[in-house]
């Protein structure tokens, strides 16, 4: 640098400098974009306004865990199961978080026409939605699992004996699995809905309304068919109309407690819930990829 400056005899202008150093490969660029997007899920690197919803969501989600962990320390029992946590709260917070942050990830770039700048760089056309999906999945995972870990740590701090700790751990692991399932499916659904339009308000509306309406539809159907304890076919399949009840049905199918969650015991319709979850995930990811193929060509 200094050599060039003296050679050119320029004092103030350093002149143009070439970059000959190492460049990141495609995988590392995707990782950088994922990290950048993950941070923006929580409003990090953005203004104060962008942080309000994520912080409120985390606080709301963790509050029952703190309260219960504190109660356990005072000698009370653990109220919330690791697998369902507080079912209605979890659904509500996930909907709010998705409706606010999925548009943050995808609608902003669509709205401001930033995508040509990404697609004129080494990334391939599927890399951009992939990075966004990984970021939102990780963010949801954090939102869903952190309260479980708080609850777990609070509980094992109070229980006596190795077998009790082992019991808690054995209960936690399926809970973390359910959280992962939620994050993987809901991130895909949230992103594909949010990417339909660049208008942020519409995008938020589409995510919120689709999640809320389908959820209430399923809840109503379950109630109409006799509630969570009903065992007739109508009640067993009523949960297939919203992603949250599908996820809960899969949980019960895989051996979860049928009385604590959202749906009636699916019984032998369990595999149907599994299939519905897989189809929903595949359709959402396929839709997301197709959406960005179209954008990259236009």
């Amino acid at each position, binding site marked *: 640098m200094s050599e060039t400056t003296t050679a050119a005899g320029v004092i103030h202008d*350093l*002149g*143009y*400098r*070439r*970059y000959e*150093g*190492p*460049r*990141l*490969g*495609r995988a*590392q*660029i995707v990782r*950088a*974009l994922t990290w*950048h997007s993950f941070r923006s899920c929580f409003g990090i*690197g*953005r*203004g104060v306004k962008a942080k309000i919803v994520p912080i409120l969501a985390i606080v709301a989600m963790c509050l029952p865990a703190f309260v219960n962990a504190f109660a356990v320390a005072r000698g009370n029992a653990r109220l919330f199961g690791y697998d369902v946590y507080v079912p209605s709260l979890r659904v509500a917070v996930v909907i709010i978080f998705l409706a606010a942050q999925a548009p943050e990830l995808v609608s*902003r*770039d669509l709205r*401001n*026409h*930033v995508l*040509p*700048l*990404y*697609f*004129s*760089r*080494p*990334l*391939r*056309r599927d890399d951009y939605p992939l990075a966004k999906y990984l970021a939102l999945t990780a963010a949801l995972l954090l939102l869903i699992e952190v309260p479980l870990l708080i609850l777990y740590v609070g509980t094992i701090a109070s229980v006596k004996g190795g077998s009790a700790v082992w019991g808690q751990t054995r209960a936690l692991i399926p809970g973390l699995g359910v959280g992962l399932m939620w994050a993987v499916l809901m991130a895909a659904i949230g992103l594909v809905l949010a990417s339909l339009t660049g208008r942020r308000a519409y995008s938020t509306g589409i995510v919120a309304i689709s999640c809320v309406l389908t959820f209430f539809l399923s809840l109503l159907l379950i109630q109409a068919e006799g509630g969570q304890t009903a065992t007739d076919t109508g009640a067993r399949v009523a949960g297939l109309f919203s992603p949250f009840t599908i996820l809960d049905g899969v949980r019960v199918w895989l051996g979860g407690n049928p009385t604590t969650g959202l749906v009636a015991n699916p019984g032998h319709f369990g595999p149907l819930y599994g299939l519905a979850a897989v189809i929903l995930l595949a359709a959402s990811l396929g839709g997301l990829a197709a959406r960005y193929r179209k954008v*990259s*060509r236009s």
Partner: protein
Amino acid sequence: MPPTEAPEPSGPAQAVIETAVVETAVIETAVIETSGLTKRYPPNVTALDGLTVRVAPGVTGLVGANGAGKSTLIKILLGLIPPTSGQAQVLGHDCQSSGEKIRTLLGYMPEHDCLPPDVTATEFVTHLGRMSGLPSTVAKERAAESLRHVGLHEERYRLIGTYSTGMKQRVKLAQALVGDPRLLLLDEPTNGLDPAGRTAMLELIARIGAEFGISIVVASHLLGEIERICDHLVAIEAGRLLRADTITSFTQVSQVLAVEVEEGMVQLQQELQARGLVATAQRDHRVLLVPLGGDDTYDVVRDAVADLALPLCRLEQRRHQVEELFRDDESSEHV
């Protein structure tokens, strides 16, 4: 000791020679080369129709009316869409098979708005530097440098939403520059700028081409503008190559003299005709356009006006817009 140290000084010298060889090789290669490049969109829209063109290093203008196929060509060069048939190479790499490699060597400035209003220019360009494959700290350094090169200093810490159109265009240029490209594709870089802004942007582009050693392709529909900074021009129309030539041969056909007199327009037109100049009246019949052959054209016009004793109020050299150039070319069969 001295004998062992003896080979040391030859090290840097060797390196210098090697660098020189590499640079010569780069200069000899065409930056863009297409042959029979065709792109059809179903059902029957032909955006590019057998385009064969070779773009040499330096600053090249890509001119064509709206819809001539400029944007399609740029997308094929970026490897974003495959051609229906034909070949395209950028910096020696095939666009279809090595799109990713090409995109690390290319900087692209889109025609339209592409900036988010709610981040600072520094953050935005740094992020895009990372997306170009720069490590984190390098991206920060180069973002600051690129923004400085395009003339944004302290303003770069402000939100892009607060910028003027001219500053936004500069940010768009900076993001194209941040990854240290070997070739810049600039799509209508003076779009939406006022005359002073246009001049500043053109000077900046000319400086990047001349001092930074980066080849540049500037797509524009305003020939008069980009001919000021280009070494070569490529004109396309309806997806086909119209002309590819050096700037001088282009300006010969494109330069005109605009003559405006307060009265006696028809008289002057006839007088100029008699003196062997084909003067055409502009649509509103207020200005006569005379093809500019050389310095003597000025003399002929001056004498004609003086002899007729007409009140001359304007005599200026003008450039055709590219559409007019095309008309001239077709009539004189330059294609």
